[in-house]
């Protein structure tokens, strides 16, 4: 078996340790002797998803996110939407998550069109939502821990489910108790920290989704997750008290 991961905009969306998510997926595939290649698609490069099995997109600084919006329009957006409808696995974090939505409205009313791949939108607020984040994710039967830092409040539209229910922190918008988004094989979250290394169950769930899309039912061999579990449990315990 083999997975080809496309890392979109590693050159600009690299703010909160996002490369750690790609590294985590790579290692957990390698440790199981599953082949893995990562193709980085920076600004200005064509997004050809034909040979790709999954896509990762992270978050960045506002300054750089403005740089890429022009690049994302048109063909890249069309390819991304088609791939998502086709069932390709996507993991999107923070700014990348927002970009999958329809638009971002700044707190003073300026509207910025995004890809519209998912029925969700984001409204900017003056206060940033910053701090440790924990949410319950039924799909993996575990709590997910991370750190959030965003001023955008995201609201899910029809057909889009949350990834989990907030236990500690703000999540999508600080008011409806929802965190992240699920649509077809798209996983989106505000949690960095980074997300996957200390949430190995979530990482494996995403990898399994991508592998099954390609190969049908797949059984992932168990790994020694003692380091991962220790980091996860430390934060889970701390946020419970």
């Amino acid at each position, binding site marked *: 078996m083999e997975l080809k991961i496309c890392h979109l905009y590693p050159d600009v969306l690299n703010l909160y*340790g996002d*490369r750690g998510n790609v590294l985590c997926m790579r290692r957990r595939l390698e440790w199981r002797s599953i082949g893995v290649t990562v193709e980085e698609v920076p600004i200005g490069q064509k997004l050809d998803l034909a040979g790709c099995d999954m896509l990762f997109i992270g978050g960045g600084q506002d300054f750089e996110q403005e740089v890429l919006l022009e690049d994302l329009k048109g063909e890249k957006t069309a390819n991304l939407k088609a791939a998502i409808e086709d069932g390709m696995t996507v993991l999107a974090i923070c700014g990348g998550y927002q970009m999958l939505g329809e638009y971002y409205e700044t707190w003073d009313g300026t509207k910025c069109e995004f890809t519209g791949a998912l029925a969700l939108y984001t409204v900017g607020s003056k206060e940033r939502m910053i701090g440790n984040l924990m949410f319950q994710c039924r799909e993996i039967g575990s709590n997910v821990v991370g*750190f959030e830092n965003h001023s955008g409040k995201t609201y899910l539209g029809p057909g889009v489910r949350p990834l989990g229910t907030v236990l500690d922190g703000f999540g999508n918008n600080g008011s409806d108790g929802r965190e992240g988004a699920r649509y077809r094989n798209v996983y989106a979250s505000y949690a960095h920290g980074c997300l996957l290394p200390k949430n190995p169950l979530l990482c494996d769930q995403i990898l399994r989704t991508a592998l099954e899309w390609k190969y049908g039912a797949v059984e992932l061999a168990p790994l020694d997750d003692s380091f991962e579990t220790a980091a996860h449990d430390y934060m889970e315990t701390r946020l419970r008290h």
Partner: protein
Amino acid sequence: MPGRVALRICPNLLGVLVKDVTVVIVTGTNGKTTTSRMIEQSWQDAGISYFANKSGANLLSGVTAEFAVHSTLTGRCRHTHALIEADEAAFQHIARYVHAAAIVMTNIFRDQLDRYGEVTHTLEKLRLGAEQCPDAILCINADDSLCSSLQGELPNKIIFYGVNTPIYASRVEEVSDAPYCIRCKSEYVYDYVTYGHLGSYRCPHCGYSRPKPELSVCRVIVTDDEHSEIVFRLGDREIPASVNLPGGYNIYNACAAMAAGAALGLDPEKTAQSLSHFSCGFGRMEKFEISGTDVRMILIKNPAGCNQVLSFLTQRTEPFVFVACLNDRVQDGRDISWIWDVDFERLTALGGMLSHIYVSGVRAEDMALRFLYAGFPRERIHVQKNYGELMEQAVSHKLPVFVMPTYTAMLDLRGTISRRYGYKQYWE
């Protein structure tokens, strides 16, 4: 605390106390403390009567308290000069009251995103501070495209300083904190990079480029485990210097200190000599001897600084032990995700030369996880949250130990070392 009370009584107290004192403010993301210690040494050697805010008292209340302590009851400062290290966020508040003769800006890097936000926000804070001191000479790092962009936005006289040559023979790819032009958002082109986003940049679209520094490092002769031998250029003069701290980033700090000297009209030859014998700040490449083993402590705050430490470590040719202490208190930055932006894979690439890694601090488990995913063998990664035990185990291999703590971990760990092994406390 006394500073806070004094400010309540007289908000402009600092303004009163600082009258007639020649003040130099040092601000920026990395290198504030070391640059300040270098400037301090040059003042000492020049026979200048001065005081400096030490032990991290770099907020407005702390600075006011320092001035009060060094003033007579009638509010006259006992010294002619004052050196203030100012936190990027506190700088604008301090600059409101203090009319500095010179302001030294070291650099801007991503740092504690939960507190400072993006690099452009930090730049704005520095601009707001400098704006309040139109008479101050600004000493700006020409190699930092963010700081340098202040030229033309402020009326101040500027002394640009920079490094005219790559520092390391081989350079690794690291995340740039400012790849796109601050003026027009096109991607910069570099003639060379020294580290991070520092180097000789130019924007092919709008023409914004590295200003030519008046004061520069024109040659790096040696940079090893203990020190660097460099040559400064000031106008037509070449001034050799030995910097008694290792690491490329300390070459920048030395250059910043030279620029501060030039701003005050000090003799550059003498300032250069001071660089060879200044005493480093606590935890800044500080050396200890524990049970006959050499231990060096290197404070880390952010990816840029941490990558610099790795550049230093990977130059080594002898085996060593590495210790990382990660805390997530407010002063460390509550968000630790930056450890995934640091290229720790470079330590794995050292193979057996790096014999063991110990991790400690509040977020030790996350640090251990980072090294595991960097490919370091799990049986040689040890979690030890007790600082006393940590040091005992780290020195037990009879190999040099390099300790890399975040800020509050450094204070705690240094406390342990002081108590157990009889070193000076950090506030002494």
